[in-house]
């Protein structure tokens, strides 16, 4: 039985898109049941790192990587690893809400059905449970069969969160989940994220330093593909070790 100290560990990760070297020698771990923020200026590789963790970058033809990413102690890029199992256990929420063009209910049923749940009662329970977790149940419970694209932006994003939670993944990846929303919806979702961390490990990519400070317990600063600093958020907010980190979070670069 493999034991591990942290659910997700990254060991000396390098990635390339064709000949462009994106991530350079990244090594870090992500604390369980906490929110880790990955922050940095645009184009520094934050999203690439996230998408390497759930192997979405496999879809891109010229993607290459060296190094290891361990999920629960196992190398996720090994030949025996099932990418479908991986993605069931590591969920993702994207920058712009992307609900399927189906009803709210069907959106949430999609995931569990993929992985073998067909009993209608069970599915309905999952629908309710997921929507409650995403703080959306009260708003949609009477209109579960209405088309999802009819919801407001903030509601749609919470639906996407509920959808990601529908398969009960221990880890949740979030790629700038509120940057396309208005401040009030964004605020609601930030608070939601903080409550979710009790049951899920959350890795959040953001370019908004203040958001990282508001929401995260641990923060990683990525600059030009390098992991410059990685520490508890309170330490970084008070006294970062690296001058580049200080320059970034005080707004002087990036």
């Amino acid at each position, binding site marked *: 039985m493999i034991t591990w100290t942290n659910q997700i560990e990254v060991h000396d990760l390098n990635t390339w898109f064709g000949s462009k070297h994106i991530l350079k020698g990244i090594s870090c771990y992500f604390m369980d049941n906490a929110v880790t923020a990955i922050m940095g200026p645009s184009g520094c590789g934050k999203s690439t790192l996230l998408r390497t963790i759930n192997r979405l970058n496999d879809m891109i033809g010229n993607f290459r990587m060296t190094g290891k990413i361990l999920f629960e102690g196992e190398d996720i890029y090994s030949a025996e690893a099932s990418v479908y199992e991986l993605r*069931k256990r590591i969920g993702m929420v994207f920058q712009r809400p992307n609900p399927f063009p189906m009803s709210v209910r069907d959106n949430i049923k999609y995931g569990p059905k993929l992985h073998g749940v067909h009993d209608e009662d069970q599915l309905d329970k999952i629908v309710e449970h997921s929507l409650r977790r995403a703080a959306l149940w009260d708003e949609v419970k009477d209109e579960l069969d209405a088309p999802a694209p009819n919801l407001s932006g903030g509601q749609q994003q919470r639906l*996407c969160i509920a959808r990601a939670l529908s398969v009960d993944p221990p880890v949740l990846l979030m790629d700038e989940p509120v940057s396309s929303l208005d401040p009030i919806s964004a605020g609601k979702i930030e608070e939601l994220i903080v409550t979710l961390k009790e049951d899920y490990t959350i890795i959040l990519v953001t370019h908004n330093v203040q958001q990282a400070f508001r929401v995260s317990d641990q923060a990683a600063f990525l600059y030009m593909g390098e992991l410059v600093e990685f520490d508890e958020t309170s330490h970084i907010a008070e006294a970062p070790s690296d001058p580049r980190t200080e320059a970034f979070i005080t707004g002087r670069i990036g």
Partner: protein
Amino acid sequence: MRVRAMRKQAKPLSETPETPPDGAGRALHTGSPSTPGKGTVFSKKRVRSARMMKDSLFKVLLAVISVVIVLPFFLILLQLASAGLGEVLGSGLGQGIQFIDTNPGPGLRGGILNSIVGSIALSALAGAVGIPVSVLGAVYINEYTRPGRVKNAIEFGADVLAGIPSIVFGAFGLALLVGGLGFGFGLFSGGVTLAFMMIPTILRTTEEALRAVPVSLREASLALGATKWTTTWKVTIRAAFPGIVTGVLLAFGRVIGETAPLLFTSGNSLGEPTSLFGPGSWVAALPYTIYLYISDPRDYLKAKAQGTAVILLIIVLTVDVIANYISRKVTRRLV
């Protein structure tokens, strides 16, 4: 501040919503006694009316052009309606139904049921062959090939196919299906030839519809652990469905009205087709029938052609309206 407010108030008094170019209407409206700078207001008005004149002229010109564009449609409609409807409905609805309901009898009098059924049968077969090929082809091109030579070649091929004249398709059908593969005249050869004509249209519109589906939708499905296959069928195609249906219906609308391909492939018949191959499969079609009747010296057949044309037009219009409705109503749902 006060002066400006006064001017703002004064404007509505001296300015009217639609001042006729020569300012004739000016006299009707209360003059502007309290407006400061009277001289400037008047000259501004002159400039304004010159501009308004240009504007109105342009509007008129555009209206005329629009009428010219739309006119032929209405002329055709009018002509057919007057000639054809009279033929179809002559002595009331009963005759109209008879027109649609009976096969041509001795001397080719009677109805055009054979043509209607034939057209439907041909289109159905064309669809049965053409739709899966094109839709699956488009799915393959869009979802499974990378941008590159193969993809470009296939798309180029489809575009070329779309531009080939319909009679060439007919000749091709004759050579390959009727003669070469020995299927002979009839439903099968005609239907498959029509299918070939449908393919480029459906391929391209399906491709467009698939491309319009945002990548993040596919990613969302993959991120939940779905395979590419499941994602394509349950998400991408479902999202593109309205666009695909529209394309299919439009292709149908086009194909129902094609004559040339059928000239050499479908044969003709006075009744309904009874089989897929062989002499029993010879089938009539509405456009072909129109062609035959109009070329016939007998006057009553020329009149019948008008009636047939009306029926054909109604079918095509119905298909187009449905396609339009679907594309408008359903595409809004896709964020």
